[in-house]
């Protein structure tokens, strides 16, 4: 009887340990493959040149068009998402602070919104674009991505705001400030690191997403100069160029993947640093 228990215990400890370490191995393997392939292809030309002779057939040049396009779209979308998301998050935590039920219902819907696949946002963005008579362009891409990342900004910022002690609200209101003044002066300041984390997360999601901009941002070899011009992006640069029959073009896809991974890596680690710093200062 006891022997059997011991064996069962050992077996499951081993199994769960095995699951964990094989998982770590798989995940490490992915990163290594991307970097090995990517750094093999990465060169200065890749970063500072646009593709020559067409992104699909021409082997010369780099992915500057995609880097610039991705940054444009991610910055633009993050900017719009901040304009919509931050006031919304503040509203939940300032004006609705006494209505717990409404707060929770809103959070519930926002969480569900976070789960909608980006291809659906893409299809919606495309519909909206046709409806407004626009073409696939930088602007259409920015708007679509903004929809995608606004729930992320709201919920991440909201999560931090909701931990700010309620006494602070009352103290501030008692001193005669209006709700708005309190929201932007007190709450925003208190939740500033949460704001940075939210923005970084949203930016990371925005710069990496491909399905939402597939229909809306288009693709081009050129660097866009106006909002109504199509724009290349890093995820799509990987996607399109990877299926090219020409090896040099595929190299460009690998390079783009390395660049994108580095950007995401930096963003994740910075965001983590910020949220850690926040939780530390919160403890004291």
């Amino acid at each position, binding site marked *: 009887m006891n022997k059997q228990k011991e064996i069962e215990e050992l077996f499951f400890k081993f199994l769960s340990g095995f699951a964990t370490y094989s998982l770590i191995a*798989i*995940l490490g393997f*992915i990163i290594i493959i991307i970097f090995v392939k990517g750094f093999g292809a990465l060169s200065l030309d890749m970063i500072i040149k646009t593709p020559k002779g067409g992104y699909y057939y021409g082997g010369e040049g780099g992915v500057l068009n995609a880097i610039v396009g991705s940054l444009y779209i991610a910055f633009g979308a993050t900017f719009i998402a901040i304009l919509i998301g931050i006031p919304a998050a503040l509203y939940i935590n300032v004006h609705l602070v006494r209505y717990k039920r409404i707060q929770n219902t*809103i959070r*519930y*819907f926002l969480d569900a919104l976070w*789960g*909608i696949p980006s291809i659906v946002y893409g299809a919606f963005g495309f519909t909206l674009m046709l409806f407004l008579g626009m073409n696939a362009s930088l602007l259409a891409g920015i708007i679509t991505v903004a929809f995608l990342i606004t729930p992320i900004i709201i919920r991440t910022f909201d999560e931090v705001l909701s931990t700010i002690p309620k006494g602070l609200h009352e103290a501030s209101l008692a001193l005669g400030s209006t709700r708005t003044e309190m929201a932007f002066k007190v709450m925003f300041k208190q939740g500033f690191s949460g704001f940075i984390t939210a923005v970084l997360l949203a930016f990371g999601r925005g710069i990496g997403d491909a399905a939402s901009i597939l*229909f809306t941002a288009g693709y081009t070899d050129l660097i866009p100069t106006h909002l109504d011009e199509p724009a290349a992006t890093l995820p799509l640069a990987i996607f399109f160029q990877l299926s090219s029959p020409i090896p040099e073009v595929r190299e460009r896809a690998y390079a783009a993947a390395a660049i994108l991974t580095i950007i995401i890596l930096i963003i994740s680690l910075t965001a983590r640093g910020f949220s850690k710093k926040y939780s530390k200062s919160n403890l004291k």
Partner: protein
Amino acid sequence: MILKRVFLNRLSGTWMLITLVIILSLPLVIGIALYLKASPIFESQSLYQLIVSTDWSPCNGNFGFWPFIFSSLYVTVLSFLFAAPICLFAAIYLTQFSSKRLIQLMHPVIDILAGIPSVIYGMWGIIIIVPFVSDVLAPLINIKSSGYSILAGGIVLAVMCIPYMLNMLIETFNTVPIGLKEASLSLGATSWESVKHVVIKKSYPGIISSFGLGIAKAFGETLAVMMVVGNMVQLSFNPFEAGYPLPALIANNYGEMLSIPMYDSALMFAAFILLVVVLVINLVFRYFIHKTQSQ
């Protein structure tokens, strides 16, 4: 001076409310927009026919979605079968058996992996998984396969969902009070028995929700799957054959969407199905989570 402050308060209060209303009405607006765009297709075929028919010939006006729905379900179920046990055991190990150091190390790793874009997982799939399926797995059971298959899609999708599900599972297990484990141990249970009878039982709603949300994420995932799944309209239970999930259908054909009549409606219908399925799964399981959290 005071007037100006009151006015500013009103103005910004209104703006804050408007933004919140915009974002909360977003799923409804998306749903309505997609439905309206898809509605012409209902005039030629009934909803039932659209879903169960296997005849997909857009040029003849026949839109049977079953092959796509089938592929989506197949890939999703496959990925779930790969990812769920690994995630469950890893989460148990990390929260119950491992040292604190390991779990502290794992947190940023999981974060980073959750942040890596879908297209990069797809690229990894093309470089590693597709050849692995065609050169290693298929010969093993004497089958010829290009590697671009349901199986490859399932594996890549599983790897993508792992950080997402693992994160939720760890959170769930961490909410089990340590006193409960102490109680079980003090009654003479081994640590595995405590996990089996108490920790897992207590986390049941959380585990189910994590799995549900993981499935929803897998169901809506586009690029990573599309890059390795082969994209051929066919019905086959053989995982070494190519498939064609719904998101891939939309992503692959948007270019010609406007040149064939009703094609755009069909694709928007596909997007509508995705929206409804994913939103419903999300709402159900998140309700579960919110309910248990408020208790």
